[in-house]
């Protein structure tokens, strides 16, 4: 690039800013080794890969026999694919419907609050769980919903009758609601920040003028508040749609058990089990590649769609 227009030649730039070029070496090396080298590892999806093939560190990649698209064919037509797709989509679609609007609603509520201290204190409280690990969230869930000594369970027993309380931890039917509940508890508060930041840019006089003109609370929200955060909502929606297949493995992995495996096995946990635990590298790599490619297409597609609708998009 840049053989014309640029007055500075590479030689001059390299010399004049040699420190910058030295400085950037670790970062570039990092990306090459830990981001781009694994992309090369995707070759496994087209092989019958075995770590025992060939000599040396990269031998297995060079010596394993190529099988074309066989692995993908096996993955798509195998018994697991539809189950994985169904489980993954039920979690992410439920999350899109119930969890995605939660921070927006809370931000709108916080925006209606007048008192400074009440607002500040509640904000401080609801941001905390974002910084807590999934292990701790799982631990808290267990301590509250355990059928032997969880206090929420005991509370629910009073409603449903002794021994009939919903067993959140192992009932497959409650697995998705439990995940959504955990996510809402953990991230709703923190999720408001970005919307509140967008709302901070709204001129207070706009609200005053609307009030004088007789606009009620809903009209003010509809015509002033919502338009102010529309762009932000679109960006968040793009990110969410792009990650439709990324249910995130830490949370699900921690809540997965033998009772709920039928609904809790998603692409991420499957890739882990097949690849890391069972050593079926080719199949797991193919599953991962399918997920990465679909996610990328969806982010780019959603971004394009947002731009077509006149929003600023993600980049």
């Amino acid at each position, binding site marked *: 690039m840049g053989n014309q227009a640029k007055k500075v030649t590479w030689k001059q730039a390299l010399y004049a800013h040699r420190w*910058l070029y030295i400085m950037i070496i670790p970062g570039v090396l990092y990306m090459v080794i*830990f981001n781009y080298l694994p992309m090369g590892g995707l070759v496994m999806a087209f092989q019958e890969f075995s770590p025992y093939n060939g000599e040396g560190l990269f031998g297995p990649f060079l010596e394993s026999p190529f099988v074309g698209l066989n692995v993908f064919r096996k993955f798509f037509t195998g018994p697991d694919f539809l189950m994985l797709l169904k489980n993954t989509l039920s979690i992410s679609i439920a999350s899109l419907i119930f969890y995605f609007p939660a921070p927006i609603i809370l931000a709108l509520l916080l925006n209606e609050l007048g008192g400074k201290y009440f607002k500040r204190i509640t904000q401080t409280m609801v941001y905390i769980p974002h910084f807590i690990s999934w*292990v701790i969230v799982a631990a808290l869930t267990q301590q509250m919903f355990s059928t032997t000594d969880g206090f929420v369970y005991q509370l629910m027993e009073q409603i449903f009758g002794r021994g009939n309380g919903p067993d959140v931890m192992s009932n497959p039917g409650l697995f998705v609601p439990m995940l959504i509940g955990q996510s809402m508890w953990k991230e709703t508060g923190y999720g408001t920040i*970005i919307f509140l930041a967008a709302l901070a840019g709204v001129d207070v006089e706009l609200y005053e003028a609307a009030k004088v003109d007789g606009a009620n609370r809903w009209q003010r929200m509809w015509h002033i508040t919502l338009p102010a955060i529309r762009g932000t909502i679109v960006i968040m929606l793009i990110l969410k749609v792009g990650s439709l297949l990324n249910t995130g493995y830490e949370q699900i992995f921690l809540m997965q058990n033998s009772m709920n495996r039928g609904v809790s096995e998603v692409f991420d946990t499957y*890739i882990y089990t097949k690849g890391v635990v069972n050593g079926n590298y080719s199949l797991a790599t193919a599953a*991962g590649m399918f997920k990465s490619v679909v996610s990328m297409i969806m982010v780019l597609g959603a971004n394009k769609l947002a731009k077509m609708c006149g929003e600023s998009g993600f980049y």
Partner: protein
Amino acid sequence: MSKTKEKGTKIKRSPGDQAVQVLIYLLVAAFALVTILPFIYVVAGSFATERELTERAFFLIPKTISTNAYQYIFRTGDAVRGLFNSILVTVVGTMINMFFSCTLAYPLSRPYFKGRTGIMNMVIVTMLFSGGMVPSYILIANILKMKNSYLALWLPTAINAFNMIIIKNYFQGIPMELEEAARMDGSNDLLTFVKIILPLSKPVLASVGLFYAVSHWNSYFNAMLYISDSKKEVIQIVLRRIIFLTSSVATEGGFDWGAFGTPPQKAIKMATTVVATVPILLVYPFIQKFFTQGVMVGSVKG
């Protein structure tokens, strides 16, 4: 950010509108309460006796304060070792993160840095596409042979593209004149970076540093993948084991329960949860000061 509405002009509210206002307060208060209730419950339970924990379903202040659970976890050593390991992983890991992220961010923030578009595109590609879990695992475990080494927790996550871009954007906002003045005085790029840019960027370095630190502290999955040596276990692994594998707590450690008879199983779980949470709550006030700006620069394009 709390200035969108002020109570400056007093326009009379209808009774219906006031009822809505009260309802909004109640909803927000209820949500905040649900958020922190589990924490209070766990802290209260960790200081309770086992008898009280089985007799009373729910309480926020135990009748008898007992530190047995804490004595137990601090004597048996798993949680303590986990804490120390987590501190080591977090401190060194965050330093590595900051080194890699800043040295990548600075050149990328300089408009005169030739090749910056190319490298920036390299970064963006990594945000859109990745090789996935298995190729990374094979690279780290089989090729680089980092299993059971903390390097596996430090190096593969050395740069988070979002965090790096937050830093880069901040560097870009620093007036060029400062840099030019330094160059006049004979400073080279490295000296300018260390002596001028970094000191001016303390707020963003603090906030990104805290983001990195929190993510190291909370990380469970990578530790599970790469660290199997029990001496190197981090606190999240220890917590997960204590919470979900209930049985072994009773007999471990040869601890004398004295008057209480049985070891406080439930209180031990709660105390371990508290021990793993407290460090985060200690840094929380500092994070809170910075995270708003971090989220904003990171997510909203100008």
